[in-house]
Structure formats: structure tokens, C-alpha cells
């Protein structure tokens, strides 16, 4: 279209630079996730899936966790008075049935402690009433989707109904979780490779 090129790269250089940049971005995205799988702390969570469909990315199951609901009683430290947009740090500890539960949450940082894992929620909006915080806060962690081969979402949905689905995740030092494995009735079903 353009015939005047007062400033432009030689097209082949442009091609290599564009492809290399985009490959680097993709590589970074992959490695940031793979590194969590490789070296994150292991936790195990209870779930409640449902089954919609993402046209671009195929079948996935929406997962909801018992730790997605944070009770006001476990929140320590100051909450931003006006409400608004915030993230929580949530301390998880393993229960007697090896499933991890939220034992403490804070709008600030939580210090690492032996036998516990600190996970960061995604940012969420909340409204503080006259009594301060609402009784429960519903939060997301960025592990609320699980992509499955087309048609296999149904099996997991049934397991959801019987509450027989668990998720093993790994958590990085900065509190980002990554799904590592799905467990159906005590049996691992989808094991996540690094790549």
C-alpha cells in the first residue's frame, strides 16, 4: 500500500524482530507458569465445578473452592475503610482430611510460616457497610478454570454434584497458584505436565 518509506525496516528484519518478540512474550507466559509447577508449594483443595463453554478455548469446567469464601472472622489487620478494590493474602493450612483450608486472611502481607502456604487472591471490589466488612467475601485466585477435551466436562460436572472432585495446586513464593492435578474420587485423572 505504501510506496514512500521514509523510515522503515527492511521487511525481513521486521519479520524476524516481530516473530522473535512475539515468541519471547509467549515463552515468558509459558515459563512463568511452568516455574510454579516446578517449584511451587503443594496444596490440595475441595471444589464445586459447573460447565459452560469458551468458544475460543474449548471446553472448560468452572471450579469453585471452599477457600473461595472468606469469612470475616478470619480476617486480621486493618481493612481499607472506604471499601473499593483490594486483594487478600490468604493463609492455607492442611486439615485432618489432607484438604487445605483458609485459616487467616489479610488485606496486607502475611508472613510465611512453617506448615502453611500464603496465596494471593485476584483483585476484587467490595463495599464496606456501617459495620465494616461484610460477613463473607467471595474471592477468586486465577485457578477457577480447568480446560478439558471436548465432551469430558460432563464427567467432572457429575463429580461436582457428588462433591468428589479435588484439585492439587502449586503455589509460587509470591502467592500465585497453578493447577497441577485433578483428583476424581481419590484417583488422579488429569496430571499436568510442565509444558
Amino acid at each position, binding site marked *: *500500500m505504501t510506496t514512500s518509506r521514509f523510515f522503515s525496516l527492511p521487511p525481513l528484519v521486521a519479520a524476524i524482530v516481530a516473530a522473535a518478540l512475539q515468541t519471547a512474550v509467549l515463552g515468558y507466559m509459558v515459563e512463568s507458569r511452568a516455574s510454579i509447577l516446578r517449584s511451587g508449594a503443594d496444596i490440595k483443595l475441595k471444589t464445586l465445578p459447573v460447565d459452560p463453554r469458551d468458544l475460543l478455548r474449548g471446553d472448560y469446567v468452572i471450579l469453585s473452592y471452599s477457600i473461595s469464601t472468606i469469612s470475616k472472622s478470619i480476617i486480621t489487620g486493618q481493612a481499607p475503610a472506604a471499601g473499593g478494590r483490594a486483594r487478600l493474602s490468604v493463609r492455607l493450612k492442611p486439615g485432618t482430611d489432607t484438604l487445605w483450608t483458609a485459616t487467616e486472611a489479610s488485606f496486607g502481607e502475611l508472613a510465611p510460616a512453617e506448615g502453611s502456604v500464603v496465596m494471593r487472591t485476584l483483585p476484587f471490589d467490595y463495599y464496606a457497610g456501617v459495620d465494616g466488612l461484610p460477613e463473607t467475601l467471595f474471592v477468586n485466585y486465577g485457578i477457577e478454570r480447568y480446560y478439558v477435551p471436548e465432551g469430558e466436562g460432563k464427567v467432572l460436572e457429575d463429580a461436582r454434584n457428588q462433591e468428589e472432585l479435588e484439585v492439587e495446586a502449586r503455589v509460587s513464593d509470591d502467592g500465585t497458584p497453578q493447577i497441577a492435578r485433578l483428583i476424581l474420587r481419590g484417583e488422579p485423572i488429569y496430571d499436568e505436565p510442565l509444558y
Partner: protein
Amino acid sequence: MYRGRLERDLKLWTAQGLIDEPVASRLLKEYDSRPSSFSLGRVLMIIAALLVSAAVLLLVAANWEAIPRLVRLIGIVGVIWGAYLAGGLLITRGAERLAAAFLVLGTLAFGGAIALVGQMYHLSGDTFQAMLVWFAGAVVAAVLFRSGAVTAIAGFLAFVVAGADWTASYNTNEMVLLWLMPVMAVIIILLVRYTGADRVRHLAYLLLVTWLAFIYSEYETPTTAITIAAFGAVAYLLAAVPQSPLHAVARSAGASPAFYSYLVLIVGLLVLHAEFDDIGDRLFLGIITLAAAIAGIALSGKENGAVRYLGYATFAAETLYLASETIGSIIGTSGFFLVSGLVVALIAWGVIALERRFSQAETKAEA
């Protein structure tokens, strides 16, 4: 195709020093401005690129377990490299239109690769971020290749980014859009200026109009609507009045600046109709709207067909609206239709008379 041959010849003549570069681009521009210069080949080529890209994206979506996901990822990265290298190679050979199709393919494959990574690691709550990365990748490719076609893709992706943020109500911060949408529009306009993809300009303008609508949806008050209408009015006057200091710049971008600012003014007035309940306010607003319609026709009618037709439409709609608000309740339904018919006939007569005058003025100016 004649245009391709013409372009090649012009390049050759420029290289041999027979004609200057500005002359060559002027000649090409003249050819492009002819109504018959629509190139079926170019359109089909881009459609083919879009279809192949859709196939790549669906391959990802199908979650095809037969192929390990790492192989799929490497395959998509291979498509990106292949498409960009083929595009670059074709540009050096002068086949710029075929090259554009490959660049479009590469840019869309990048989006597919982002989606695949999201699928591989079961990412959630990140659609907005993913789309933003895709948009950034498209912008970078458009700059590097100076490609009008990729600029168009970036323009559409700007809307996708805004849509992704708007629809994902839970995790994303909608307030980001307040500054992000105008920033993306400015980026697109700069790309358009750089690549010469003039038609993509409309995407940037539409993005700005959408942005104003978004502002209104966030702050739904009469003040917001009045501000939007006033902003549109000022912008329109700056673009359309010959004495305005910005008139020359606006004209260099064609009919669009005047039209879109006029559109903002009309949209603002339309929203105000929903805000005002009082009959006196509505009447006042009606008079303002009619005045805006007449001002648009009078100021830009001769040189800007788009503003003229929007002016006609606004005038007709407002007249009918006022008729239904005032006399509509008195004369009953059938009487109202009769009056409407007469009003529309009168407007039609006015439009025909005006159109005749405009075309006479044009022929006189040409003669």
C-alpha cells in the same frame, strides 16, 4: 490486476529516476480514489487469511488431545514465524497485497498462541490481560512492517480489549477503560498516519464515540450527557467552521472529524432526551436539537455528505418526536399518523430542494 502492475511500474520508474517519488504516490492515490479501483483480489486474499487464522484458532479451541500441547504450541509459533517471514519476503519482492494477507495470518496466530497458553495452564480471570497483550503484539507488528492491514487488525483488537474488560465484570477494573480507550484510539490514529491505512481511522473514531458512551454508562447523569453534547458541539465547530484554527488539520483527515464530532453531539442530545422528564425541558431540548440539525446542514451540508444526512435524519426524528409529545396526545392515533405523514412530506420536500441547491453549487464551482 492493473493496480499491481501500475504499482510495480511506478516503482520501476521511480528507481530509474524517470519520475519523483511524490508523483508516483500521487498517481497511485489518484487510481485508488476511482470508484472502480475496488480490488476483488485483495479482499479475497484477506478473507483467505482470516479463514486460515480461524482454522488455527479452532484447532486450539478443539483441545485436540491427539497432538501433545507442546507440539501444538510449537506449531503455532511456527505459523507465526512462517507467516511473518513469508510476508517480509513478499514485500521485498513487491507483492505487498499478498504480503498483507500473511501478516494478518501471523498476527492472528499470535492471538491463538496466547489462547493456547491460557488453555495449557488453565488460566482464569485473565481475558482482558491476554487481549491487551494481543493488541500490543499487533501494534508492534504494524509498526515494524508499516502494514495497513495489521493496523486494521489492531483497530479491531482495540474493541476486543475494551469488550473483554467490560464483559468480565468480576475480576477486572472497569475504570481502566476510562483512560485506556482514548490511549488505544490515539495509538490507532498514529498507526494510520504512519502506515497510510486511511480507512482504519474510522475504527479509532468509533472507539472514541464508544468511549464517551462508556463514560455515560458509568456516570449516568444529565451533567455527563450535557458535557458529552457540549464536547461534541465544540469539536464539531472546531472541525467545521472555516475560521477555526483546526479547520485545516481536520480537513486533511477528510470528512471524518466533522462527522464523528457531530455524531457525538447528536448522541449526547439523544441521551438527554431520556434524562429530561419535564415537558418544558423536553421542548427546550427539542429546539436545541432542531437547531443542531439545521446548523449541521448549513455549515457542512455542501462539503460533507455524511454530516448532511445525519442532520436530515436528526431533523426528521426530532420533528416527529416533538409532534408525538405535543399534539400527539390531543389528536389521537390516526390524526397523529396523518400529521406525521404531512410533516415527513414537508421534510422530504425541504431535503429535495436543499439537495438540488447543493448539486447546483457543486457544478457551478466546477465550471
